[in-house]
């Protein structure tokens, strides 16, 4: 369909709205002046200062460990949950189960966070690294479940049946056929889980305890005191990591897509 000048204008405005604040943030992280509105020349001093800020670095390290751990557990549980949603159409409590998968996606974080905290206190677990990891696993697994589920819905069941038919037992079939084919979705799920964990402030604030301050908690406590170029620098690095990750992921998908199209072209000719 033709996309007129009107469409282009709207899209340009919307994307400008989405990107300008982030771009400004990145630019001002290189500002030599401490004042936000004054451009004092290019400088990387805030990055150096950030690097030597032990509190910030500790928080970053905690965040990465929580992220990797919770994303990994969340991906395993989420993939199992997706299999349950797609493959087990009837079992007692299925409604409850799918409810527990969908609800955390929209549940206000303050509720999820508060309720988890009260659970940890009620059973007497000391809050810290592990409670944050459990909390993050709980909500990220639901996102993973949704991502993997959408792949499983379009999965051709006859591939599994063919494996069974050729003598491959069910568990082996899952690892030899199903898992390799849904792997891109599982990896995407992991990446999403990791970013969500990296990003979370509210749930972590409730679930954490002494010694387990995550980066968003740290940033939040400093942001409340006002805009600082040091935080701009930390944010820029976070944005950079995520952007590079997403770009790599999309290049890989593009190449796969290209390969597939080439294959099909090849096949059409070979026929």
């Amino acid at each position, binding site marked *: 369909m033709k996309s007129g000048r009107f469409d282009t204008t709207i899209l340009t405005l919307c994307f400008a709205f989405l990107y300008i604040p982030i771009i400004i943030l990145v630019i001002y992280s290189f500002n030599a002046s401490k004042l936000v509105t004054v451009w004092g020349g290019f400088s990387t001093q805030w990055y150096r200062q950030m690097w030597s800020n032990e509190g910030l670095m500790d928080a970053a390290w905690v965040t990465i460990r929580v992220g990797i751990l919770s994303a990994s557990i969340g991906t395993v549980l989420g993939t199992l949950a997706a299999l349950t949603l797609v493959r087990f159409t009837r079992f007692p409590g299925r409604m409850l189960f799918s409810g527990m998968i969908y609800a955390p996606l929209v549940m206000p974080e303050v509720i999820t966070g508060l309720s988890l905290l009260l659970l940890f206190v009620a059973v007497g677990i000391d809050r810290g690294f592990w409670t944050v990891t459990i909390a993050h696993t709980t909500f990220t697994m639901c996102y993973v479940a949704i991502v993997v589920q959408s792949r499983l819905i379009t999965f051709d069941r006859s591939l599994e049946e063919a494996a*069974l038919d050729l*003598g491959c037992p069910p568990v082996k079939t899952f690892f030899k056929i199903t898992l390799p084919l849904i792997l891109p979705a599982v990896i995407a799920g992991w990446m999403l889980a990791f970013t969500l964990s990296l990003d979370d402030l509210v749930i972590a604030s409730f679930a954490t305890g002494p010694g387990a301050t995550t980066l968003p908690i740290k940033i939040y406590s400093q942001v409340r005191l006002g805009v600082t170029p040091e935080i701009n620098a930390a944010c820029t690095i976070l944005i950079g990591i995520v952007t590079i990750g997403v770009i790599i992921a999309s290049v890989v998908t593009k190449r796969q897509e290209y390969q597939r199209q080439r294959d099909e072209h090849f096949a059409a000719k070979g026929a």
Partner: protein
Amino acid sequence: MAKSLGPVKRKFTPWTDPAAQPFIRFENITKRFGTFVAVDNLTLDIYEKEFFSLLGPSGCGKTTLMRMLAGFEEPTEGRILLQGKDISGVPPYRRPTNMMFQSYALFPHMTVEKNIAFGLEQDKLPKGEIDTRVQEMLKLVKLEQFAKRKPSQLSGGQRQRVALARSLAKRPKVLLLDEPLGALDRKLREETQFELMDIQHTLGLTFLIVTHDQEEAMTVSDRIAVMDKGIIMQVATPAEIYEAPNSRYVADFIGDINILDGKVVSTTAAGGQAGTVRLDCGGLAVAVDQECAAVVGNDVAFAIRPEKVRISLDKPADDSVNAAYGEVWDIGYLGDFSLFLVKTQDGRVLRAAQANVARLVDRPITFGDMVWLSWSADAGLVLTR
């Protein structure tokens, strides 16, 4: 691609031999999905080395029946015997049957070779033997030079061959084919049909094919089971199914046919003996020579294939043949023959086909002509159900 002619086929009719043991027996099989009855108390015998077709419209239960044999579904009632042994409860990965899927179900992340080797690897065969068998299979389906390709790099026809090779690699006792040629275009389909027959004959396997394509079933099968709503309407050879359908459903499902409602006026075909049955089909008197259990006054149907109806401008000389008079209402020119739709005086439309034996652009019979349709007493059929 040059079509190789296999060995000359012999007459093969184990089902007429009362001593023959069935290779596969479906015994009073019922399959329900919730309240829906997919297969209804069905009993069927299939013999060794037979090429057997399950034919019917979608939803008639043919695929369910096949999937029960493969082990993907368990019968709700009844049992399935393979070489006399009950295979209920045996999971699909331990059954000596292999299936070629409608979608082919080729593993997209494996090469052609790996796909074909997959089943053999599950049996933990030595590597050397797997390689030999894969090569053998590639040769059989003429894909030697495509061994290292991925399924996405193959054309539809090539994928179909890989699927066939993969399902044959384990030398199953029974090969199940679910609409095997459905995705191919017409010309390739016809070619492949003959290849399938050759392979079946060469390897001496039992083939069970599920299809909704009557031509395919007619071409490849030793016997066909025509199914409708979970029951078998008729099991017979392709010729019997076409020439002697046992019901309106089968007659109508296979090929083109005229069916007229009628009443038995008189019959000499009593007690399963051949004789002449005279019918009154709403004013049109018809005589049919056949075995028939119908008695005088029964409501029956008269069926006749269009190619068995002669069409002429003159009244047939012989008074003993059946005849109807009418106007040519429409003509379908199909190249090898023409189909005439003739409206008789009582307003019925009968179809007559005429082979176009001479090379003519203007045919002697055209729209609006008054014509005579005629057929002999052994051309049509009385259908009692």
